[in-house]
């Protein structure tokens, strides 16, 4: 029998451990397997079960020596807080850096921390704290104050400092002799109008690998997995970047968006410059990262039913008739739709999530009448020219009509100031493989890209 060259791509989730097996020679997805997560006891038990499920399905051909790559969103994912200065400037820059690294920002503080804030941070007990504030050469007093407050925390969360570079000596002195891990990265906002998230993203990723994996009990898998375990959203972001940009030898699809609807959050990714398409538009606000991720913690289709119903009523996607049915049938976080009505209701909920999350991710324009004609001011990314939107996450991928759910992201005539995609083709991640291809791209970017092009299907 010919030994196939297989890769085993694992996502340690909070509820399920998922495994995608790909054949590198044929460049196809061989199968997808999922078992309940065992992160609470021993994460390797679930991993072994998932591998056994693959073996049962694919036969012994899968061999003894396996090439495994993994990402994780188990045990709450990567929970971060940010501490910055001005909400619309350094604080927002910090939040973007954290989201881009695949974190969940559980709380964001601005200005000087109070003792009460410090107690609140201890209560939250985040995995990592990102401390920012001040442009280089700008305000130093607030970041020093906040560093001093953070030095008094009980919780052992590593602290990444990515603010005014002039504050470094002072902050180092404050933490002298402390057991806390302190890591310095480049300022996320070195000047007004310049956003630098790469250095912080790298620092977050390094700490996730060196510390957080262990703290969450995922490190047991390290001996089995071939490369470092990364946060799941950062694997999805990598996949989206690869699919958009391509490689040296294989062309990508160009600028695109990905919408991931989940039980707890709805995430939107855009791989696009977002430059104005309206001529003469002036851009306001913080610059946008080319690869941008936003996370809506109030738009999970199981955990946030009440707020989704309310928003759905306002947007007209839902009416009173749906309310009781949805409340009665979808109260459990692990509920999957079973009959026609449940599929319909689940898709309606997902549609509201896609609509609102998409609207928050896309930029806006404001038209100001002036003596010399209309002035157009743009905030955020102009995504109206995006040609490709990909849906992923159970409520989209398994919907009876995924296109109907996904269409909610598109431009509409009654709100022309929202810069949503106008003529995008809609696709779904048919085998739920984006995270897996993000992992594979670390070793085999060309193959990962070609497989993605096969499994991302138009709807």
């Amino acid at each position, binding site marked *: 029998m010919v030994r196939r060259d297989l890769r085993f791509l694992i996502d340690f989730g909070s509820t399920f451990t998922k495994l995608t097996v790909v054949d590198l020679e044929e460049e196809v997805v061989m199968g997808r397997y999922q078992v309940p997560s065992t992160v609470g006891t021993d994460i390797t038990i679930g991993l072994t079960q998932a591998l056994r499920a693959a073996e049962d399905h694919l036969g012994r051909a899968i061999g003894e020596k396996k090439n495994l790559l993994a990402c994780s969103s188990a045990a709450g994912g990567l929970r971060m807080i940010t501490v910055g200065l*001005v909400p619309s400037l350094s604080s927002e820059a910090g939040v973007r850096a954290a989201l881009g690294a695949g974190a969940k920002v559980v709380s964001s503080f601005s200005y000087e921390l109070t003792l009460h804030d410090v107690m609140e941070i201890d209560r939250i007990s985040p995995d990592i704290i990102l401390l920012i504030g001040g442009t280089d050469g*700008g305000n130093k007093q607030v970041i020093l104050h906040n560093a001093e407050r953070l030095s008094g925390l009980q919780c052992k969360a590593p602290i990444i400092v990515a603010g005014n570079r002039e504050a470094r000596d002072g902050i180092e002195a404050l933490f002298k002799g402390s057991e806390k891990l302190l890591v310095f990265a480049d300022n996320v906002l070195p000047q007004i109008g310049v956003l630098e998230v790469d250095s912080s993203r790298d620092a977050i990723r390094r700490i996730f690998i060196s510390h957080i994996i262990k703290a969450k009990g995922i490190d047991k898998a390290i001996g089995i997995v071939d490369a470092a375990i990364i946060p799941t959203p950062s694997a999805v972001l990598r996949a989206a970047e690869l699919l958009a940009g391509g490689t040296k030898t294989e062309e990508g699809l160009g600028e695109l968006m990905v919408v991931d609807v989940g039980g707890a959050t709805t995430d939107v990714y855009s791989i696009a410059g977002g430059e104005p398409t309206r001529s003469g538009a002036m851009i306001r606000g913080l610059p946008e990262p080319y690869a941008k991720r936003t996370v809506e913690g109030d738009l999970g289709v199981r955990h946030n039913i009440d707020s989704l119903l309310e928003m759905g009523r306002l947007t007209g996607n839902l009416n009173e008739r749906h309310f009781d049915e949805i409340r009665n049938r979808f109260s459990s976080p692990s509920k999957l739709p079973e009959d026609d009505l449940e599929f319909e209701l689940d898709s309606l909920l997902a549609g509201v999530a896609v609509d609102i999350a998409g609207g928050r991710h896309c930029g806006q324009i404001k038209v100001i009448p*002036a*003596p010399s004609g209309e002035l157009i001011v743009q905030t955020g990314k102009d995504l109206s020219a995006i040609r490709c939107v990909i849906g992923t996450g159970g409520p989209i991928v398994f919907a009876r009509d995924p296109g109907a759910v996904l269409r909610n992201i598109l431009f509409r005539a009654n709100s022309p100031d929202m810069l949503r995609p106008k003529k995008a083709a809609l696709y779904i991640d048919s085998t739920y493989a984006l995270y897996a291809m993000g992992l594979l791209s670390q070793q085999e970017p060309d193959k990962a890209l070609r497989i993605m092009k096969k499994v991302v299907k138009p709807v």
Partner: protein
Amino acid sequence: MTKAPTIITGTVGEDSHSIGSRLLSRVLKDRGFNVVELGGLTPAEEFIHVAKETDASAILMSSLYGMAEIDLAGFKDACIEAGLQDVLLYLGGYLMVGRHDWGEAERRFKALGFDRVYPPEVDLDKVMEDLKSDLHQRGKLQ
């Protein structure tokens, strides 16, 4: 050597006339200041946000469409609220509509809390002299 003071420039409100503000920025840079240029169509609160983040010593605003009184109502109070009471506030341009006496415009905007108020055709050397002397007086320039 002490650090060069940071100065913020821009045209306030829904006014897109930014050439004067650009000329001013160039002169400030030539004189060795650290300049943050916000350009045209800058909301008043944006000046405050940026001044806080950059630890600025002065805000030099321009307005050429006659709406400055509406755009800047309460601006000084907002600066005080934001902890920027020591930041110098300069304003220049066509500040009011209709025929009016320049002295009237100057009085009104000084009453709103601006340290210096200039007509549109002011000599920028004069502004630089004023700025240096004001910063010096506040101990922000040697």
